[in-house]
């Protein structure tokens, strides 16, 4: 057999293998190895170490290390407090991390504020989370918000120790480490607060496999009265923009004109104003991920920037340079990266910010 026909034969067998597997659908793999011969390569130990960063509830995957509450406070104030508040209590950017748990919860492992009759307004992270590994894993892989994976292992321990201290789960002189983390797990306020008694896991390992709510498809005279439990509040109707502009302008229906309902003249489709265009540019360029129009997010609000620089000599030039080159230190330690926008775009953004950053 010539080399060519041998190759052709192999290719044919390969093709048949793949075809029959596809035709068979579920349950049929393409002819097992060597079907994917030549595809992929062995992962090196260093590659696996670099990416396999998950930590399980039994702490498998947790690297050795330690951090004190005090060290954690330093990291927290530099890198976390802008979003989460000095005491993890802030509700400005994200929901609070700390609050709502008690010494009694630490004893029982059930957070009382989750139970019927509680008037506690919100669910904080410490009220919900049952597994300490979750917090270590998440801080390590995703925090800080604008610079994920930048914390050193000991810093992750330290930040977590600080959070646990804010929740009064560990004392102020505590040093959290891989050696004692399992002991701290036993003090998590909501460690007994999870249940898998439900039918919403699509496998055998967890839960009951059976739906919890059973309805019947009755077809006629199914009830004697129609009880309306809730209708749309006025503020909710008008909070979502003009519904007339969110529907097609042909067909069986039109969107409701919210402005008409409010007694204002119907808004004709207009060209967006210069302010609206600048606002759009700020959104499209990712500026508003860190700067609110009127509130601090990660960086200062545009209103704060305007207030600080207004009337100062060459405020525009200074800010244009800042946007281009990036900066840090004026508003906090979190740096703003250099922005790659056209010069005239940066100029229009800066002028808009200095004018008070109106949304429209």
């Amino acid at each position: 057999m010539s080399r060519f026909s041998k190759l052709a034969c192999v290719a044919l067998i390969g093709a048949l293998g793949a075809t029959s597997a596809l035709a068979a659908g579920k349950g049929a793999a393409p002819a097992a190895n060597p079907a994917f011969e030549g595809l992929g390569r062995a992962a090196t130990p260093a590659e696996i170490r670099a990416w396999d960063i998950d930590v399980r509830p039994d702490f498998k995957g947790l690297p050795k290390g330690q951090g004190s509450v005090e060290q954690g406070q330093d990291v927290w104030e530099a890198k976390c407090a802008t979003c989460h508040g000095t005491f993890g209590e802030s509700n400005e950017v994200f929901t609070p991390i700390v609050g709502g748990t008690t010494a009694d919860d630490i004893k029982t492992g059930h957070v009382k504020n989750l139970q019927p009759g509680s008037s506690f307004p919100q669910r904080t992270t410490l009220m919900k989370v049952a597994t300490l590994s979750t917090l270590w894993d998440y801080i390590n892989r995703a925090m800080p918000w604008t610079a994920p994976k930048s914390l050193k292992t000991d810093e992750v321990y330290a930040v977590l120790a600080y959070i646990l201290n804010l929740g009064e789960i560990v004392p102020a002189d505590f040093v959290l480490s891989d050696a004692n983390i399992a002991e701290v797990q036993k003090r998590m306020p909501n460690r007994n607060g999870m249940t898998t008694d439900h039918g919403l896991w699509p496998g055998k390992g967890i839960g009951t496999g059976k739906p919890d709510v059973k309805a019947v498809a009755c077809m006629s005279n199914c009830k004697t009265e129609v009880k309306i439990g809730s209708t749309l509040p006025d503020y909710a109707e008008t909070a979502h923009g003009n519904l007339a502009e969110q529907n097609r302008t042909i067909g069986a229906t039109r969107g409701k004109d919210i402005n008409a309902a409010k007694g204002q003249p119907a808004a004709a489709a207009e060209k967006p104003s210069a302010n609206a265009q600048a606002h759009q540019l700020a959104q499209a360029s990712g500026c508003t991920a860190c700067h609110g129009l009127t509130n601090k997010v990660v960086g200062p609000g545009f209103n704060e920037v305007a207030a600080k620089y207004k009337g100062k000599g060459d405020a525009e030039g200074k800010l244009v340079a800042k946007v281009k080159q990036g900066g840090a230190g004026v508003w906090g330690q979190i740096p703003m990266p250099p922005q790659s926008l056209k010069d005239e775009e940066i100029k229009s953004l800066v002028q808009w910010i200095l004018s008070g950053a109106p949304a429209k």
Partner: protein
Amino acid sequence: MSEHPTRPEGAGQRLGKVRPAPEGFLSQDDIAAVKAGRRDFLRGSFSAAVAAMGAGAAGFSGLARAAEEGDSAILTLPPWSTSLGQGVAARPYGLPSQYEKGLIRRESPGLTRVSGSSVAFTPLQGLFGIITPSGLHFERHHQGWQDIDPSRHRLMINGSDPSMVKRPKVYTMDDILRMPPVSRIHFIECGANTGMEWGNVAVPTVQYSHGMLSCSEFTGVPLRWILEDCGADLKKGKYILAEGADGSSMTRTIPMELVLSDEVLVAYGQNGEMLRPENGYPLRLVVPGVQGVSWVKWLRRIEVGDQPYASKDEAVHYIDLMPNGQHRQYTSTQEAKSVITSPSGGQMLLDKGFYNVTGLAWSGRGKVKKVDVSFDGGINWKEARLEGPVHSKALSRFNIGWVWDGKPAILQSRVTDETGYVQPSYGQLRAVRGTKSIYHNNAIQSWKVAESGEVSNVQVL
């Protein structure tokens, strides 16, 4: 001009549907006219159209005559019939018509405070069939979206310990695109879809109440084939962990049973092209029937293990608070659900008469078996027509004709899936799960039609 004595009944209504620019608005006068009686309203609006045209083209003496003789859209040739159109590739990547600009992804104000960790909803009120255009696919990111260089993207397969995967491997996109692919149509729904409505009505339209829902044809490789290529122990490994390459490097636990069913795909294709960056370009996991958060985007790693992982999105978020204070953990399946997409909240019916009531139904447990529709708030139901083919764990489109008599009505839809599960009412769902669950709200949706033709969101218990 407001009198048309020679026109037969009905003709005015057809002409009246030619509405004056700007399209799509009912002015206060129009609304008052609708309330006073539909025929007058429509006749008035026709007159207004003529008047508007008269003002805009002063001196054109044919106008008045045209209005008497018929529709100016016919009698006066429009510019597109009397000019040269644009050349090919004027827009090398096609865009919707300028008249469709209202149907876009939108955020719900006040839902989240940071756009990088927010939601943009699909405009279900204006879509047809079952496929969501890729540019309108809903968005949910946990730490912003990235546009990843595919030549530098890698997929790693390894085990929670060496015995789980004999040959931990790394694949490039070149490798994955060389594997034999499958293409399948599936829905993806965020576990928090309709979550704002657990306690009471909170949003005006179906875009915000149900728009964390999309359906696409996905192309990719069954994950099992790749795990077998790595010598994974598919018996000892009862779970997999999927991990993203973005800043959040989101992780979720998925049961091996789903992988063994060959339904779980390592996907790169969406509706015939590559995934959009917002949807995970160049690689995402497709986990049919399971809430969207498990369909890890920008997929970089799969770990095979023998325990669930309690990741942030299965231990802090995506846990469902029950009335007794316990949180349900590892709730993944999206149970059967349906919604009428038109007529729906925030829309106005323009007239009495025939309407096609249309909507979507789906189940995370398999195929939709039937959809029933009620026009009286759930006292009586009629089976709607399902548009085929019906795919497993995909959206199904239903349609049913309805003649509106101008009286108040409450429209509902109710799906039954192939397992026999029937979509519950709010009363039935809350009796078991309370109102603080946030996730997995699949209650029957009700749209109230008022005499004015206005459709609004209400909850029937």
